[in-house]
């Protein structure tokens, strides 16, 4: 009798939960839209304040201390029209693309090896940590000696910048995969290879994707640093040139482009993350 009552209660509660769900969903969408609007307005306000501050500093201390926002914009226009910016951007994106691409492949692959084989992981751990703790700039003189001043050495710096965090995040993700899920799979008699590809790697995906995103920002950084310290080229080259000759308007124009580039790459990767690890995003945001 007790059970009968429970059996009846089940469908009706789920039905009412569904009905509730529709209304709740609508109000949640409304809340999200409002939140998005507030965030966007806040961000525009911050930009406005920055521009205002620039203008004030410029008015009081002169164009060398701080260029006027208007002249920065004009300079940006010049750079675009001359094709200087386009060429620099292409150079930078080439170095970044190759360096980051190679670091993705090598970082994820070696991270899987280091994370998947305990002994190998333990052998390499201190060396990986040492590499991680060393500023990548420290390697630039050596890289110049080995690979010269041009694209090759820049690609190597970009690769080295992103490779380590991607490797570490991949290895960590696999090593810290949910023990309960591993035990469940082992109880089913899952062979090692299946366990690795079907449980450990998917469980590590959120961590791997974090490494991929962090790596992208660091690869951009590495690219710009390489362009500053080796043969000047790309956006880093423009930055150095403008900075060294105290053309502050041009300098700020390049900084804005760099910031926009970093933001765009991050946003793109976040979008990919949502797409390929939707279960994780839902699981974090839902309930």
């Amino acid at each position, binding site marked *: 009798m007790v*059970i009968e009552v*429970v059996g009846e209660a089940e469908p009706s509660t789920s039905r009412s939960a569904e009905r509730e769900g529709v209304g709740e969903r609508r109000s949640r969408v409304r809340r999200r839209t409002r939140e998005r609007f507030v965030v966007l307005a806040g961000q525009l306000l911050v930009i406005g304040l920055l521009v205002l501050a620039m203008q004030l500093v410029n008015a009081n201390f002169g164009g060398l201390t701080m260029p006027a926002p208007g002249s920065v914009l004009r300079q940006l226009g010049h750079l675009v029209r001359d094709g200087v910016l386009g060429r620099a951007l292409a150079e930078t994106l080439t170095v970044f693309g190759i360096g980051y691409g190679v670091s993705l492949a090598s970082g994820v692959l070696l991270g899987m090896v280091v994370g998947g084989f305990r002994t190998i992981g333990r052998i390499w751990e201190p060396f990986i940590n040492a590499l991680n703790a060393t500023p990548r700039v420290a390697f630039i003189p050596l890289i110049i000696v080995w690979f010269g001043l041009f694209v090759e050495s820049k690609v190597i710096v970009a690769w080295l910048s992103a490779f380590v965090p991607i490797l570490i995040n991949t290895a960590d993700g696999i090593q810290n995969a949910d023990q309960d899920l591993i035990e469940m799979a082992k109880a*089913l008699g899952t062979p090692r290879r299946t366990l690795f590809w079907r449980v450990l790697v998917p469980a590590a995906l959120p961590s791997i994707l974090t490494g991929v995103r962090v790596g992208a920002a660091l690869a951009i950084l590495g690219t710009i640093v390489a362009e500053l310290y080796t043969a000047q080229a790309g956006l880093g080259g423009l930055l150095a040139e403008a900075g060294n000759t105290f053309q502050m308007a041009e300098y700020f124009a390049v900084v804005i482009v760099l910031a926009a580039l970093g933001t765009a790459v991050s946003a793109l990767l976040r979008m990919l993350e949502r797409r390929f690890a939707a279960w994780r995003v839902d699981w974090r945001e839902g309930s």
Partner: protein
Amino acid sequence: MRQQEPPVAVVEAARGGEAQGAPSGRPQIEVQGVSRWFKGGQVHALDRITFDVAAGEFVSVVGPSGCGKTTLLRVIDGLIKPDAGRVLIAGHPPVPGPQMGFVFQQARLLPWRTVRANVEFPLFVQGVPADERRERAMNVLATVGLQAFANAYPHELSGGMQQRVGLARAFAVDPAVLLMDEPFGALDAMTRQFMRLELLRLWARLRTAVVFVTHDIDEAILLSNRIVVLRPRPGQVDEIVRVDLPEDRWEGDVEGLQRFRELHDHLWHRIRSMVGQSAEWATSAQGGGGRGGEPAPGDVRPGPGGS
């Protein structure tokens, strides 16, 4: 370990009794003198555990925390090896695999797989072709009433529904043995009732040998043919009680039956006396209570089946 080791007190109340559905004579699960230590011998988890489970029999394991219930299940599954004694499944040493269904306290579903893909997972491990996998998964999901949620992800389900998927996954491969580690312990009371019914329905159809670990005495009485009572530190068989209630006990109001209350009181008394025995518990228990029926070590108490 610091306690003196009392002789194993086993009251095999069901001995000679007809265990349902055991045609071959050989028990499906034989646990023979299993001992297991942890931390290099510091922790004695299991001490000479011996009991059988006939084919198609439902056996619960109850006992206070620290009596090695979970360890016992892992030994039966073959996930860990005993330090002494042995386990036989249909006469062979256990190998973790799809023939051994395992249901955990948390459903342990793969969060990146849909409900259906989770139920398919053991079939995938077994190498069952994709279309057959799909068909079998959908069939099992239908029996637990979740076919409408086949394409949902685990996080979209309630705890009770997740555990139903866990049950479906265990039953998807027609296991010879079903091991359950407090599977309903994390659910609310109402869902738990419903899940018990669900489990009994599935079990009645498939007649798998079940070892069901729980700390809920009523649950053990409601579900089982026999109940193995363990005492803690080290985990030893205290007694084995046959539940002589009607087979279709979930149809009526069993909890109101005189026999149910007797079994409940008996089991509760046993377990409370163990808790009273432990120095660790005696000091923390309020007013030094719970020592009422402290039995002498090795006190053999006849099970209700024999009384």
